[in-house]
């Protein structure tokens, strides 16, 4: 009995020491400026930076969503397509010169920030809304917005509902655990409308419930509502049996994000987005970029020359090869191509450009100059 007590006390002491060591390490990680020469665990926080780590690894690890129409879809041959997936490919093209050098990691909404903070992914391109809390407390840094979305409401055409104000005492279906649910609450509370929320794990299940008549309204990002409306089955009345209300109840600027504290990597991701927009401003597409590059005289059109890396001695200092922007445009395309290919009018989403147009066309896309 006495012996076992002694052993137990030794064990407790040992575990206390271990615990103390553990917390010391954690403190070192949190404050890299500490006196010890400990190398921090997270590659994003090391001096070499994520850019060097990605280049050494040879692949980009990109976090995307677990199947989102128009944004990230896995095709039958195992490749990824979609708006978000294309931005992963564009970053890989810029950093590694190969748009196919991407490892896609599919993340749930709940796990995405933790995965980014833990360094499991290099960049998160997962239809994530840029908010103050995420930029601040979550420790994320949002690059330029790639897609300006908003939350809307879809109802049956014959429901007699023409605006959200008509929706008192209705049942509204929404995906669980998203900002969508919070926006729904605050919108209806602000207008003093009583409603019942039915929450679902995924859009497939939600749609089944809608077919069964359990929902009066379906609220989600407009791009997602458009995707489901565009493919509404004929036996359920086809696309015309449902309509999307004109009310937009929130702003949802979606874009890629990286961890705070690695400005070099942030700049790279940011300028990849800018390059796709700049290419559209130049009228440069994956089809004509080669002929443009061949025909460009750097003295006559210095802006295009700088963009394509043809001006000797011009290096923006992003840590990328001179032809990084050329690689993006030739391998992935400009913003317009990415948009039309994945979410444009010819796709199931069928979205007009709207605010996602160049500033010259009355949209919000504006590329800072390449100098």
């Amino acid at each position: 009995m006495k012996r076992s007590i002694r052993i137990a006390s030794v064990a407790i002491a040992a575990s206390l020491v271990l615990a103390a060591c553990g917390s010391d390490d954690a403190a070192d990680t949190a404050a890299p400026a500490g006196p010890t020469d400990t190398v921090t665990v997270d590659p994003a926080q090391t001096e070499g930076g994520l850019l060097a780590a990605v280049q050494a690894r040879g692949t980009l690890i990109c976090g995307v969503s677990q199947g989102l129409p128009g944004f990230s879809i896995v095709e039958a041959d195992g490749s990824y397509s979609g708006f978000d997936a294309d931005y992963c490919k564009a970053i890989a093209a810029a950093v590694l010169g190969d748009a196919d050098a991407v490892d896609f990691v599919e993340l749930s909404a709940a796990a995405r920030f933790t995965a980014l903070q833990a360094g499991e992914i290099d960049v998160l391109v997962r239809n994530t809304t840029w908010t103050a809390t995420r930029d601040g407390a979550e420790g994320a840094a949002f690059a330029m917005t790639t897609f300006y979305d908003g939350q809307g409401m879809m109802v049956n055409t014959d429901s007699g509902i023409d605006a959200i104000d008509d929706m008192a005492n209705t049942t509204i279906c929404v995906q669980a655990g998203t900002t969508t649910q919070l926006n729904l609450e605050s919108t209806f509370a602000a207008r003093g409308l009583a409603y019942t929320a039915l929450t679902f794990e995924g859009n497939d299940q939600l749609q089944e419930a809608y077919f069964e008549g359990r929902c009066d309204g379906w609220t989600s990002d407009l791009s997602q509502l458009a995707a489901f409306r565009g493919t509404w089955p004929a036996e359920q009345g086809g696309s015309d049996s449902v309509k999307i209300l004109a009310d937009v109840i929130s702003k949802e600027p979606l874009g890629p994000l990286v961890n705070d504290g690695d400005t070099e990597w942030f700049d790279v991701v940011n300028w990849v987005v800018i390059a796709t927009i700049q290419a559209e401003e130049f009228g440069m597409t994956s089809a004509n970029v080669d002929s443009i590059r061949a025909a460009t005289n750097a003295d006559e059109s210095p802006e295009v020359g700088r963009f394509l890396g043809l001006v000797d001695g011009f290096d923006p200092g992003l840590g990328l090869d001179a032809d990084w922007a050329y690689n993006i445009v030739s391998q992935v395309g400009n913003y317009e191509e990415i948009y039309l290919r994945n979410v444009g009018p010819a796709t199931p989403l069928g979205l007009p450009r709207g605010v996602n147009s160049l500033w010259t066309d009355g949209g919000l896309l504006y590329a800072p100059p390449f100098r």
Partner: protein
Amino acid sequence: MSATTSTRPPVRRVAPARWAKDNLFATPFNALLTLIFAPLVAVVAWWFLRFLAVRARWEIVETNLTLYIVGAFPRDQLWRLWLSLAILAVVFGLIGGLVGATTREAAIAAGRPLTTTRWDRVARLGPPALLLVSLLGFARTFTPFVLTAGVVALGVATSLLARRLPGAVRRSVPLIAVLGIVVALFAISGFGGVPRSAWGGLLITMYYTIGALVISYPLGILFALGRRSSLPMVRWVCGAYVEFFRGSPLITLLFTGWLVLPFFLPADFSTPTLVTRALTIFILFTSAYVAEIVRGGLQAVGRGQWEAAQALGLSPWKQTRLIVLPQALRAVIPGLVGQAISLFKDTTLVLIIGQQDLLAIAQNVTKQDEFLGKGYIIESLVFVGIVYWVASYWLSKESQRLEVRLGVGQR
């Protein structure tokens, strides 16, 4: 020998009409229950079969069959998988044939029935064969037929061969099997092959299942023995291990291995890949459960068996290996197989740590342009459900056969 056989009661055979009267209409109450539930069962079965054969739109499975099976695995490297399948067919043919032969010999020696009636065989092999045939029905080219036939033939041939192996070779089969599995793994990922991070679908599901089974079962036996050790330190460490992993939810452990573990590893220690971490978690988790199952079996072995083994002058290691463990493991076959099935199904949890396993793909394919918004999720999930059910059912049937042959539950 024949004397032993004759002491067993003869198998009772009853006419179907008599069986129905005894079991379904024995009392008025039973007759009422039968009349209520038989149509109900018939309706559900009819509904399900009609769905499978007529109503279901299987084109989503047809289009994405390769994706379901291998995920994002590069399509120009698929030959590696076939090679690896051929190696695994040899390994499992060898194990199956050998276990079949030895248990058959044991059953004959003990005068137990072999239970290889035609109905047993159909019930055991029918569902997997049916699934394989339907999978091949979805294939669009001729090559999968030829290759599958080749792999199946190879497995059957090896299992027939294994029955005739001399004793000396038999003893080295476990080693050959482990080597074979390692070689099969290398055939896919070694020599410029495909890294495990690019595996998906059924492939990654099977990798986690087989990998965790092969490592966690021996480990679990060691922990079970350790927990009964006379050395207090060994006993406590094994006990603490088992209690910790059995007391934590698998999903928590997976999350920890995914997101928390990298923070605790030494800085100069490169973090293992996500697949390795997840596999490790499955091994740690399963071995804790196996340890408790095996410990139950060890407790069922009477003290007299140890003493008899000691009286024969066997070393402690031999007492355990030759006398106690075989009896203990035989007693807990249902529990061990149940844990294997449970592990197989638990691997679906990797979808929350960003892995593309069979279930994750089933949910993802419905977002393809062709299938979006048309309720294909039902077909996709039913298909995956059938795959899981058939595999679990087959495993369970094989274990039942083993139990009968080893006379588990009979003394």
